[in-house]
C-alpha cells in the first residue's frame, strides 16, 4: 500500500519566476527505503517539505497516509505520519538535555508522563543513544546529535521518516553511524524511509532510487537500474558509484560485463569475468 502519493505536484516559491516542482507524480510504498538524488537546486528539499505540509502545493495533490496535506484540520495527522529530519542537527535540537529533546514531540502531543518516558527510552534505544540520555546535546559529536534528532522524530511514532541530507554536515564515521541507524529502523521496524542525499553509496543501500532534475523526476528504479545508466547520470550531473564507473570504462557497450556492480564484491566478480574474456 502506498503511504505517500503525490499527483501532478507543482510548486512555485512566492518570489520565484519558475516552478521549483513541475508535475511530480510519485507513490511511495509503506515499509520501503527510497533515496532521492539530484543536483543542487533540483527540488529535492522542496519536495520533502511537501510531505510534511511545511509547504503546500501550488497545483496537484499530496496524500500522506491517505490524508490530503492541504486539509488544515488534519495537519497534525500528516506531521505525525511523516516525521522530518533536517540537515543541521544543531538547528533542530530544542532542549539542553538529550532525553528532554526526544520528549519534545510527545510533550506537544499532550501524552501522559509514563507514556512519554516509555517512548523516550524506546526511541533512544532504537538509535543506540540510551547511555547519553542525560547528556547535553552540544557536547555530542555530529553523528550522535543527528541520531538524537532522529529519536526526537521517532517519538511521534511516525509511519514514515523523511530525511533531508541528514549526513551532509557529518564526518565519514558520523555518516556511517546515522546510515546504520536508519537502515536498522527500516529493516527491523518496517519504517518507511525517504532519504535525500548527495552520496551515491548511501543511495545504493535503498530499495528504490529517484533522481530529480529541475523539479521533475528524471530517473526512477532500483539502485541497479539507475546506477547502471552511467551516461544518463552524467547528463544529470551525477557520478555513478566508482565500481560502476570502473566496469563501464572497461566495457562501455556492456557486451560482456553488466554495469550493475554496486558492491565491491560484485565489481570483483565482473573484473574476473573481464580478465577471463
Amino acid at each position, binding site marked *: 500500500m502506498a503511504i505517500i502519493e503525490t499527483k501532478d505536484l507543482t510548486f512555485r516559491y512566492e518570489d520565484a519566476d519558475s516552478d521549483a516542482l513541475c508535475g511530480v507524480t510519485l507513490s511511495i510504498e509503506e515499509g520501503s527505503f527510497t533515496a532521492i538524488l539530484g543536483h543542487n537546486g533540483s527540488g529535492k528539499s522542496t519536495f520533502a517539505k511537501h510531505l*510534511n505540509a*511545511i509547504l503546500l502545493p501550488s497545483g496537484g495533490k499530496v496524500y500522506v497516509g491517505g490524508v490530503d496535506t492541504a486539509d488544515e484540520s488534519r495537519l*497534525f495527522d500528516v*506531521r*505525525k505520519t511523516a*516525521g*522530518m529530519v*533536517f540537515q*543541521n542537527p*544543531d*538547528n*533542530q*535540537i*530544542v*532542549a*539542553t*538535555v538529550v*532525553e*528532554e529533546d526526544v*520528549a*519534545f*514531540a*510527545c*510533550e*506537544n*502531543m*499532550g*501524552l*501522559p*508522563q509514563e507514556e*512519554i*518516558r516509555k517512548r*523516550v527510552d524506546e526511541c533512544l534505544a532504537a538509535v543506540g543513544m540510551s547511555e547519553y540520555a*542525560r*547528556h*547535553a546535546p*552540544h557536547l555530542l559529536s555530529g553523528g550522535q546529535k543527528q541520531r538524537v534528532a532522529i529519536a*526526537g*522524530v521517532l517519538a*511521534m511514532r511516525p509511519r514514515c521518516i523523511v530525511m533531508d541530507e541528514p549526513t551532509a554536515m557529518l564526518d565519514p564515521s558520523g555518516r556511517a553511524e546515522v546510515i546504520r541507524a536508519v537502515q536498522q529502523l527500516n529493516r527491523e521496524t518496517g519504517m518507511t524511509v525517504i532519504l535525500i542525499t548527495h552520496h551515491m553509496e548511501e543511495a545504493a543501500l535503498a530499495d528504490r532510487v529517484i533522481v530529480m532534475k529541475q523539479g521533475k523526476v528524471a530517473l526512477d528504479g532500483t539502485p541497479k537500474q539507475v546506477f547502471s545508466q552511467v551516461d544518463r547520470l552524467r547528463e544529470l550531473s551525477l557520478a555513478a558509484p566508482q565500481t560502476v564507473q570502473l566496469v563501464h570504462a572497461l566495457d562501455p557497450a556492456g557486451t560482456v560485463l553488466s554495469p550493475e556492480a554496486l558492491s565491491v564484491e560484485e565489481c570483483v566478480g565482473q573484473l574476473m569475468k573481464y580478465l577471463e574474456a
Partner: protein
Amino acid sequence: MLKDITLGQYFPGTSPLHRMDPRSKLLILILYIVTIFVVKGLFPYLICVLALITAVIISTIPPKMVLRSLRPILIIVLFTGLLNLFYTPGVELFHLWIFKITREGIATAAAMALRIILLVASTSLLTYTTSPMSLTDALENLLGPLKKIKAPVHEFAMMMSIALRFIPTLIEETNKIMSAQKARGADFESGNIFSRAKALVPVLVPLFVSAFRRAEELATAMECRLYHGGEGRTRLHSLHYGRVDLIAAILAVAVCGGAIALHILL
C-alpha cells in the same frame, strides 16, 4: 574571553541540589539575594558565605567552575569597588591627590564587591544544577497566575529556554568566525576600545545572519514536531515538591533569617 561565559551551562548530576524542585531553588535563590542585599556587617556576611560554600559542596559542582563564573564580572566588581572606595564620605584615613579614602569607603567597597560576587556565584550554582528546561518550567509555573491576565508566560519561558540552549552553539560559532577573520588578518587584540569594537563588526554581521537562519530552521523543526504553543502540553519531568525541598526550605529560612536577625541585633 568567550569560553569564560558559563551562563546557562548545566552540569547534570544526582546531588540533592540537582534533585530539588526548580521552583524551590528559584525561590530560595531570591530569598538569598534579598538577604545579601539587606544585611550588613561581618557576621551576617560570614553566614551568607558559609551557606553558599556548603551549597557548592553539596552540589558536587567543582568549585573551580563556580569561580570561573566570576571571571567575566571581575571588571564590574573592581569598578563598583573602586567607586565606593573613593566616593563614600566619612572618617578620612589617608588621601592621595584628589582621592580620599575613608573607613566607611573601605567597608562599603568590600560589602559591594562581596554582594556582587555572592549574587553571581549563587545564580550560577542554580543554573549549574538545574537544566534550563526545568528552570523555565519553574518560571512558567511560578508566573502561572499571570496567564489569567493574558500575559504570554509560556512563550516567555520557551524563549528563555531556547536562548539558553543556543548560548553554547552561538559561542562556538563566534569563535569559528573570529578564527576565520583572524586568518584573513583581522586584529581583535590591539588598538583602543573603538578600533577593537570596530574590528568586531565583521564578526557580528555573519553571526546575526546565521542566527536568523538558525531561528527559521528551528521554528520549522519545532512545527514538524507538533509544537503549537503551551496549550495542552504535558512534560516528561513534571515538577514535584518533595522531602529535599522541605528540608532545603527550612534550612534556607533558618540561614537567611539568622543573618537578618544578626544584622538587626548587632
